[in-house]
């Protein structure tokens, strides 16, 4: 007997929650307990009185599963709202990566040239290394990192996706 799993499409969920101890464990635990995917998850306090956090979750699954994920999140006591950003039409997604590249000579020059094309900023340099800061969609960040692999990539740190719907409305 084989165990098979269903493929699905990518969704970005914005979840506002009470900024209380254990909330992140509650959310991530829900995903692991019910077998949902997390591609990335970011969280930070977003209100002046530190009462609310916004969690952005990139997940994937067939439509029925995405529906379940939203309903399951929504019924958690500390969750205020859950929004599927794809549902509301256009939205903006960004991710930041810090990319350390080490090398000398041609490779170093090539790295710098490509960073320029990608509008990555140099935030630190030594004679033998750069740290680039790149902001963009996950796709763009992926492509930049793939190129840097050829130019002496030694370390990457990524934030995961934050996203927000276009237009004047709030969630």
């Amino acid at each position: 007997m084989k165990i098979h799993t269903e493929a699905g499409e990518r969704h970005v969920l914005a979840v506002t929650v009470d900024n209380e101890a254990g909330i992140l464990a509650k959310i991530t635990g829900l995903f692991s307990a019910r077998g949902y995917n997390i591609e990335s998850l970011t969280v930070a306090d977003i209100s002046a009185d530190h009462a609310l956090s916004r969690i952005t979750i990139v997940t994937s699954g067939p439509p029925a599963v995405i529906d379940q994920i939203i309903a399951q999140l929504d019924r958690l006591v500390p969750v205020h709202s859950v929004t599927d950003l794809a549902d509301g039409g256009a939205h903006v997604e960004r991710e930041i990566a810090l990319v350390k590249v080490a090398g000398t000579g041609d490779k170093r020059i090539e790295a710098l040239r490509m960073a320029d094309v990608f509008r990555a900023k140099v935030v630190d340099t030594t004679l033998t290394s750069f740290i680039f800061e790149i902001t963009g969609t996950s796709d763009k960040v992926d492509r930049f990192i793939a190129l840097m692999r050829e130019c002496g990539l030694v370390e990457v740190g990524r934030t995961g996706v934050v996203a927000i719907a276009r237009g004047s409305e709030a969630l």
Partner: protein
Amino acid sequence: MTEMSGADMVVQALVDLGVDTVFGYPGGAVLPIYDALFKHPTIKHILVRHEQAATHAAEGYARSTGKPGVVLVTSGPGATNAVTGITDALLDSIPMVVLTGQVPTTLIGTDAFQECDTVGITRHCTKHNYLVMDPDRLGPILHEAFYIATHGRPGPVVIDIPKNVQVATGTYSIPNRIDHKSYRPQVDPDAAAITQAAAMIAAAERPIFYTGGGVINAGPDASAALRQLVALTGAPVTSTLMGLGAFPADDDKWLGMLGMHGTYESNMAMNRADLIIAVGARFDDRVTGRLDAFSPDSKKIHIDIDRSSINKIVPVDLAIVGDAGRALDALIAVWGDKGYKARDLGEWWRRIDGWRATRCLDFPEKKEDGAEIMPQRAVKALFDATRGRDPIITTEVGQHQMWAAQHFHFDSPNRWLTSGGLGTMGYGFPAAVGAQIAHPDRLVICVAGEASLQMNIQEMGTVSQYRLPVKIFILNNQWMGMVRQWQELTYESRYSNSYSDSLPDFVKLADAYGWTGIRIDNLGELADGIQRMIDTPGPVIVDCRVAQLANCFPMIPSGAAHTDMILQPNDITGTMDDEAKALV
């Protein structure tokens, strides 16, 4: 606003919340609360013999009264022992508040004596939980916890209280009105959806009501509304294990329970229906059988308080989020406003009567006095003997549970207490204790298996201490019968570890605890033995020896369709393919 110790605040909050009973067990980390409870004039503390039993007793109390059950246990092992009952309450949507002691805040995280991460451990088996770090928060948190446990889909809430928070003083405050920031369950159904649902019911040719524990949770009025709507529409009714009692079993619209050990007529009617009206039921795998064959030609309306239950397993045509009782009331109102009349469902009922004619709950038996007792017969005799006494029946888990569900009949809600979602052996006896505490004068009977009973048998002491007249009726087949049945069906009768070896002498055990023990060996002794049990004022254990190898039918084997029910023992094959074996 008065200054008092955290422990006093806990007790004050319980009083203010109308709590009359707490099931618990003391220990170092809750001693301040125990001291505050010492000789308390209104709150009765029931000392159990194991914390798991405290949680099941609280469930029994809650399920039989509709009020939340309250549990008090110490840190570490006290809290971990409570986890099974907390999870049971989560899966069966039972309102429960569990207070756990915790090491002082200054020691949290140091592996202190009897420290465990209670909020971490219970995070995913509670509806919500709290760690209280400040005594001033105790009042608001306790009030909020009771609100959360009892509103929307009910469930267990844990409040973990460090010992220094119990000792420290602060101000006790009560929130004026619980207006939770984020938790606002939708109780009123959408009016347009109700109108549409009524039209769908009025137009259906083969409708069926499929009801569940949500109707019981919505209160006795919801059960009354269900009866009224069924009478108006003339449609048949089936129910899940958790929903038994919401609709009277002696009504001719009643088809019996559905699902794995449900009746043939219920499962066939679900399969052939053109409209299913699911009310407070969640399409559990024990109910649906093979999903791709589940009721293929029906439209489905799903009424549920929990949006995440809708479209979780079976996609439905019309979703109605709301309280079952309010939704049923709204349907009745619209039915009247629109002047709908019950359709002629004669053809549908003729088909149902055809399925009923299989008499799927019949079982072979010998009738002479010396004959061995068929377990089904024992349940039927128990039902006949207790008719008119409005008993509360609890069960353990296994074949006896299914036989009780099939052959004991209920005409009102809150009389049937069983562990459905988690299927917890060891639930039934302590649940009977909780129900008896709540209803001191009622006849409370736990229908038990000899194996399950041993999981919380220590509670005999609790029963003796509080002089509770609880009756335990053991269907003693000397097997973990349900396990043996599956081994027959799936593993060619290789009975791996399913024999109940080295059983105690239950009659002597009764004696040891100051109970009455009765043993019933054959059919001739059955009626008398049961009558003696009922007539004995105190607690009684009945060791009813039943046919050892009887199996529970009808049965939909796991992974099979409703139409593939096994009706008779000789339909059994003894092997299964891996796909079927992998299902529970």
